[in-house]
């Protein structure tokens, strides 16, 4: 076969316009926030993944644009504060963001403009879901997609604290949490995410996780042949691996890519909330009430309080001390 084949592509056909049944249902859930007894699915969907090859990314922001258009969000028109990163952070209306870092490689003294598409990593072990106190506000499907169910969200912000990548954002308009859905509505009808489809250089590709890992191997070999000895795949084991992965030219130092965590883990604080604070607190509030009602009650104010956070941190410190002592 000729070696000039096109890269793996997200879309193999144009989206359907005839009505189609969704292929992601509650029956495919493997986790549901604040729900202890979820029946396990009868079928296992093939795990999917989005692979972001930072070395092929030209920072054009097509992914941001496509994301806004597909998800019908309305990011604000801000101002320039001296950087190309716009908006300046993820927002409830901007689920993905190109983060630009000017980095001088100390080994070559050459400038490298590192551009990383930030957004939800769809962790196999999702900290947001584990931290979430609202039943069914965060769900995980057997194909790996971690999705927010806004009707069930109470806007407490625990998911923000629970996320090792600092991704979810609470909307000022409706006080619910938002993030990348991996375009669950597209995946459900056999289409890849809008960002991956748009990406001009196909730095973003989407497919089965297995295929994406194989594709990454080829890319890493190419980068090594071009002198990037530490090129590698970012699929952090601390969160059980992710369904959004990166190919990095400098996989030995992910932190240079706009603070990509070196070894992300679900914060021990979140684990502590879960045990000590979260359920107890919510039980008092009336856990049985529907999420929407809870949301109505607490609205914007229902955030993790400073006090709660300190309390939890203290609990963690004690626990760690005990471990050390032992």
């Amino acid at each position, binding site marked *: *076969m000729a070696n000039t*084949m*096109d890269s*793996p*592509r*997200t*879309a*193999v056909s*144009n*989206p*359907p*316009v*005839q*009505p*189609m*049944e*969704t*292929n*992601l*249902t*509650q029956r495919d859930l493997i986790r549901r926030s604040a729900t202890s007894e979820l029946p396990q699915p009868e079928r296992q*969907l*093939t795990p*999917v993944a989005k692979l972001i090859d930072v070395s092929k990314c030209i920072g*054009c*922001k*097509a992914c*941001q*644009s*496509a994301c*806004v*258009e*597909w998800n019908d969000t309305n990011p604000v028109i801000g101002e320039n504060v001296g950087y190309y990163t716009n908006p300046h952070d993820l927002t409830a209306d901007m689920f993905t963001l190109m983060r630009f870092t000017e980095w001088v490689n100390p080994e070559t003294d050459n400038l490298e403009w590192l551009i990383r598409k930030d957004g939800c990593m769809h962790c196999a072990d999702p900290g947001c879901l584990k931290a979430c106190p609202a039943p069914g506000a965060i*769900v995980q499907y057997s*194909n790996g997609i971690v*999705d927010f169910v806004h009707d069930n969200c109470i806007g407490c912000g625990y998911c923000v604290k629970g996320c090792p990548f600092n991704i979810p954002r609470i909307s000022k308009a409706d006080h619910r949490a938002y993030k990348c*859905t991996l375009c*669950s*509505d*597209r995946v*459900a*009808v*056999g289409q*890849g995410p*809008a960002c991956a*489809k*748009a*990406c*001009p*250089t*196909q730095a973003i*590709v989407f*497919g*089965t996780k*297995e*295929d994406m890992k*194989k*594709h990454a*191997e*080829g890319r890493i070999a190419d980068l090594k042949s071009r002198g990037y000895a530490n090129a590698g795949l970012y699929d952090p084991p601390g969160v059980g691996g992710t369904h959004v992965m990166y190919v990095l030219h400098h996989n030995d130092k992910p932190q240079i890519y706009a603070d990509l965590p070196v070894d992300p883990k679900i914060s021990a604080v979140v684990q502590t909330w879960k045990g000590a604070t979260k359920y107890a607190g919510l039980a008092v509030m009336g856990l049985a009430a529907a999420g929407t009602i809870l949301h109505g009650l607490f609205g914007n104010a229902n955030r993790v309080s400073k006090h709660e956070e300190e309390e939890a941190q203290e609990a963690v410190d004690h626990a760690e001390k005990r471990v050390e002592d032992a």
Partner: protein
Amino acid sequence: MNMDLSRRGFLKLAGAGVAATSMGALGFGEAEAAEIAHVRPFKLAMTTETRQTCPYCSVACGIIIYSKGDVRKGDKAEVVHIEGDVDHPTNRGTLCPKGAALKDFVKSPTRLLYPMHRKPGSDKFERMSWDEALDRIARLMKDDRDANLLLKNEKGLDVNRWTTTGMLAASATSNETAWATFKFAKSIGMVGFDNQARV
């Protein structure tokens, strides 16, 4: 790794969708099924597809415009979404940040809706009918041409050159519009006639 492999992988996934057991078979009734489907309904369902070309740069990416209503059936049609055309050899379904947001160009709040007229010295535009605007423009142009068309040069040669009214043609119009524009401009003797290729 090549495309075939990836395609197979993807089709396997898509295939799962087609083969998925229906809600009914899983024991849910219709109402219940709707309630538990957390994912957004696919928003392109029941839209009309039209093959188009991105109007920005010269890569000329293939796009598909999804609209409500079908102009070919005489409907009033409105764009609901625009996405890259996977069948197009150049862009293969991809789009840049401009192309991906084309819908918001078509539906820009600063799209012009009516002919507007600004009187000399005025600080505002005022609505004008098409007929009134076109008649007045034709009159102004003819009067200027009649007054200033240079019929002959100093050697008596026919030169038929009109330099006092000029035109910039739009390099985003179609070839067909461009040909009509060309015929118009050159036949009236206009020589101050250029397009964006000059700059």
